[in-house]
């Protein structure tokens, strides 16, 4: 089971790399925002899986909740900003 969780963690890391390609390359700013959003989802899952891997979910689950909520605030701020400023 531990091996399986490690496998999941590794694949999540590689998937984050794929999203990072989109953040770095992204022709428009919105591509970067989308990539960031995808990365944050992966980070939330990764945190929980790390918690399961170390058998201490109780410590990691609070971080991931905080992450999810703060991520919403950040993403909405970015969207509001882009809506008012237009394309850079």
């Amino acid at each position, binding site marked *: 089971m531990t091996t399986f969780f490690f496998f999941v963690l590794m694949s999540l890391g590689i998937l984050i790399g794929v999203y990072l390609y989109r953040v770095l390359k992204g022709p428009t700013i919105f591509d970067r925002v989308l990539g960031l959003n995808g990365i944050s*989802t992966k980070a939330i899952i990764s945190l*929980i899986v790390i918690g399961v891997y170390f058998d201490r979910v109780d410590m990691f689950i609070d971080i991931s909740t905080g992450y999810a909520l703060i991520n919403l605030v950040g993403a909405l701020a970015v969207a509001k900003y882009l809506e008012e400023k237009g394309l850079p």
Partner: protein
Amino acid sequence: MNILAIIFMSAGLFFLVVAAIGVVRLPDVFSRSHAVSLTDSLGAFLMLIGVAFHEGLDTNTLKILVVLVLLYILNPVIAHATIRAALRSGLKPWKKENL
């Protein structure tokens, strides 16, 4: 229980991989956001359900379910906000004729 967890997490991983492929392959922001926010959140959902099965029934599982509901509520909101900003700032969706 562990078998169930592995099945759910593998299904979640499949959807996450599909979303990542979509992010690279699809042509513009509008179609990419379909892959990122929606296929992705289904993948996250299945994966967290798998983790919850592995954990069994206690407080942590309840918290995992809260994270799951939060993800599922927040992801579409973020996708909608981003897409609306893109549309309002004058970006045109990609059309097939432009090939």
